[in-house]
């Protein structure tokens, strides 16, 4: 106890008497403290002269186990919300863990994780069962038990990816590094389920060796461990002459047939598969393979390289013929004007031909280069078509003259560009060509004109839409004209008839309710809140306080003073708000808080009808409240005792405006029971963390 300064005289010489529990100033004699709470250990003599300390061990987690009280209710009478959450969590962990056959140590560790999670507020917004499953899985991973996330999701009937997401988040937040899953862990479990009898161990060992081989061959990265296990077990079973079909294995391992087959084929590709059974058991090949997906990728790359080489070869061949093409083309130029006259018709004709050309050129590229001469010849023929097509699109891209007056190098460019031009032309051929050309041009001009502009600053400030680079005509295509709108409206209404009906019904319902004055906005699950009718604001506050649950954290004295200053008749409900019947029972329970309560007993005298209503109404209100446990306890308490008055009170209770006759009966009882203080009773109520305000 720090020496304090006396309030009356300012002296600092204060005498603290532990026995009496009082602090007195030696100067003036003013009593500074009465009933000091002492933290000393008391001893009691038990039977046989054994002295033992008074008190109970309370765990650091809070009152996890309610002290056995008179009636022996374990159901969390007067516990804090946190303790309830933990208790609930523990129960669920035990339940789920026993289904998974986890030992007690694992379950305790899981509960510790859960406590960490709750203290970090990670349970908010997540279903408790997800969080618990994640904690259990975390334990499984750290301990290395052969439980899969799939098992947990099976038990809970929840999507495994949702559980996985929760698990990953918790692992990250708790900074727990779960070691990577080793497929070898699952082998004994699956082997057991496949029932190999006496040879179980041997088959498992073989499967393990196979798995290790797979690991070295880089088959296991990025794959579900259960799939690999399934493949290994299947092969091992066959090696030991057990007949296990693919279906048996997949039912145990929980992958699909395709996956299993795929793993088997991949294993087939490795050199190990070529060994015989005996050889495999003795010899370990040193060579390591690349992973299968990597080899597939490599395969693609090789194919691309081959195609490029082919293209190069073709180019070289074409280079030789280039001089001939020059002459031919110069002659064609002379005859061109006639072609231009029938431009439109020609473009349409070319479309199917373009496609044929595309397909033929792609075929050409795929051939192995044996028919290089043939290819050169066909290429030469097709070049004529291509050159004409390119020239006709020329206006947008380049002049025809420029191409042919240059030498081989630009011609190679032309040739190189042709493979690009071909796909463009085939695509363009399918769309209406003049329009497509126009679009292409505008698009290219947009692209070029975009960077130099700085439209960002001005529109951002004014919010005006910068119309640069937007083709209005094209956008108008996005908007239907009137007739189309009508047709579409009809169609849409037909399609969505059900939805429109629902909307109408909803609106009508809302209208009706508005007329009746019981219109509820959206939330249909409201508790039945009665209208608070009060004359003054102070009264209204009091009644609201009555209805809502009382909190131990509010200084009701101050509240009362506030209300009294505003001139309301009745004092607001303070801590001593308990009812007649309940107080009796509660007084038995709360002997601990007696010291504190002594102070407040004085306040207990200030009882008003509001208190009674609170008493009567609160048990009923408690029924509705989510915190059922304290309510249930209260309810059962109140109902168990066959006292008529308290029973009347809850029965008639609800509306604060009602029951003046009740007051009379209650008044009598109140007078009898003032000796018990409020806080005792409040202590039982004090399970809420919600504030009234």
């Amino acid at each position, binding site marked *: 106890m720090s020496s304090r300064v006396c309030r009356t005289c300012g002296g600092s010489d204060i005498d603290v008497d532990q026995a009496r529990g009082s602090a007195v100033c030696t100067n003036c004699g003013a009593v500074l403290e009465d009933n000091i709470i002492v933290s000393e250990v008391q001893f009691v003599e038990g039977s046989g002269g054994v002295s033992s300390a008074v008190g109970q061990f309370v765990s650091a987690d809070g009152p996890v186990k309610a002290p056995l009280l008179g009636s022996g209710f374990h159901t969390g009478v007067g516990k804090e919300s946190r303790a309830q959450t933990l208790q609930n969590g523990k129960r669920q962990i035990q339940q789920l863990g026993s289904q998974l056959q986890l030992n007690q140590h694992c379950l305790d560790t899981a509960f510790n994780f859960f406590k960490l999670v709750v203290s970090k507020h990670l349970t908010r917004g997540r279903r408790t069962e997800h969080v618990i499953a994640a904690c259990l899985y975390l334990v499984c991973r750290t301990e290395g038990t052969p439980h*899969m*996330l*799939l098992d947990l999701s099976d038990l809970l009937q929840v999507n*495994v*990816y949702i559980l*996985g997401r929760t*698990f*990953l988040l918790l*692992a*990250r937040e708790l*900074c727990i*590094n779960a070691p*990577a*899953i080793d497929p070898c862990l699952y082998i004994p479990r699956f082997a057991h389920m496949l029932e190999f009898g006496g040879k179980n161990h041997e088959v498992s060992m073989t499967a393990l060796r196979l798995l290790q081989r797979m690991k070295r061959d*880089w088959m296991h*990265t*990025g*794959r*579900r*461990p*259960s799939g690999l296990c399934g493949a290994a077990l299947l092969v091992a079973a066959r090696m030991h002459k057990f007949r296990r079909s693919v279906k048996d294995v997949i039912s145990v391992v929980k992958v699909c047939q395709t996956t299993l087959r795929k793993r088997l084929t991949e294993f087939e590709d490795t050199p190990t598969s070529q060994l015989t059974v005996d050889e495999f058991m003795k010899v370990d090949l040193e060579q*390591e*393979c*690349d*992973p299968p*997906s*990597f080899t597939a*990728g490599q395969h693609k790359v090789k194919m691309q390289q081959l195609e490029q080489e082919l293209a190069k070869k073709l180019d070289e061949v074409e280079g030789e013929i280039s001089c001939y093409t020059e002459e031919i083309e110069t002659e064609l130029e002379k005859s061109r004007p006639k072609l231009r006259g029938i431009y439109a018709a020609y473009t349409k004709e070319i479309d199917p031909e373009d496609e044929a050309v595309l397909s033929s050129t792609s075929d050409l590229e795929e051939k192995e280069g044996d028919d290089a001469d043939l290819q050169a010849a066909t290429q030469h023929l097709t070049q004529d078509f291509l050159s004409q097509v390119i020239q006709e699109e020329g206006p947008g891209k380049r002049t025809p003259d420029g191409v042919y007056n240059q030498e081989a190098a630009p011609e190679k460019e032309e040739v190189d560009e042709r493979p690009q031009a071909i796909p463009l032309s085939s695509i363009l051929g399918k769309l209406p060509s003049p329009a497509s050309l126009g*679009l292409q041009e505008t*698009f290219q001009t*947009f692209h070029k004109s*975009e*960077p130099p502009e700085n439209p960002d600053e001005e*529109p*951002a400030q*004014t*919010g*005006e*839409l*910068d*119309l640069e*680079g*937007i083709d*209005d005509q*094209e*956008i*108008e*295509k*996005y*908007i*239907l004209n009137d007739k189309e*709108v009508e047709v*579409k*409206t009809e169609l*849409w209404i037909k399609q*969505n008839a059900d*939805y429109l009906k629902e909307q109408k019904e909803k609106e009508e319902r809302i209208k009706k309710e508005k007329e009746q004055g019981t219109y509820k906005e959206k939330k249909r699950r409201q508790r039945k809140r009665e209208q608070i009718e009060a004359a003054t604001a102070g009264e209204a506050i009091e009644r609201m306080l009555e209805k809502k649950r009382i909190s131990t954290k509010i200084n009701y004295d101050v509240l009362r003073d506030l209300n009294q200053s505003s001139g309301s008749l009745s004092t607001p409900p303070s801590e001593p708000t308990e009812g007649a019947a309940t107080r009796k029972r509660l007084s038995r329970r709360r002997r601990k808080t007696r010291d504190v309560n002594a102070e407040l007993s004085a306040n207990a005298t200030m009882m008003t009808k509001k208190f009674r209503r609170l008493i009567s109404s609160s048990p009923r209100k408690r029924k509705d409240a989510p915190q059922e446990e304290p309510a249930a306890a209260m309810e059962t308490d109140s109902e168990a005792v066959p006292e008529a008055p308290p029973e009347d009170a809850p029965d008639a209770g609800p509306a604060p405006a009602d029951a003046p006759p009740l007051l009379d009966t209650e008044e009598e009882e109140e007078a009898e029971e003032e000796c018990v203080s409020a806080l005792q009773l409040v202590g039982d109520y004090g399970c809420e963390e919600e504030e009234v305000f």
Partner: protein
Amino acid sequence: MDSNNDEALDIIVTNVVATFRTRCHLNLRKIALEGTNVIYKPEVGKVLMKLRKPTITASIWSSGKIICTGATSEDEAKLGARRLARCLQKLGFKVRFSAFKVVNVLAVCSMPFAVHLVNFTNNNRPIASYEPELHPAATYRIKHLKATVQVFSTGSLTVTGPNVQNVATAVEHIYPLLYECQKPRK
């Protein structure tokens, strides 16, 4: 990008997501009935409108907020957004183009070597996480860049970040880490 290796690493941006506001209330039913390429979802309360060029899909809400997805570059996203606003303007709404922001950029990249994911995850805990039961790739989250890189065992990466610059920086950041854990080639 090329600073730490000889060959060039191609980072291909595949998707850019951007949002903007029109600062005016939009009547979704009118848009649905008078526009081409629109899908109206009254239960959710939005309209999906698809532009052909640039290929963009936009979700339009009646409050005037619009999300544009499917563009292949930030400029394209802006162009598409402006086109969309113009289209809405023509439909008769008093549209003002404001608060344009690129929200997410998705890019793919391929390493010339394969990666051993288990080693990579072990070296980089807890920034990297790998759950083969759930997803075949290891996820590496770079906090200061707000970017996420998913690494596959073949060496391909997918990177998501708030803009293209961050994405490029993320690839540069992660390259040396991957290089250490590469699989030995044949």
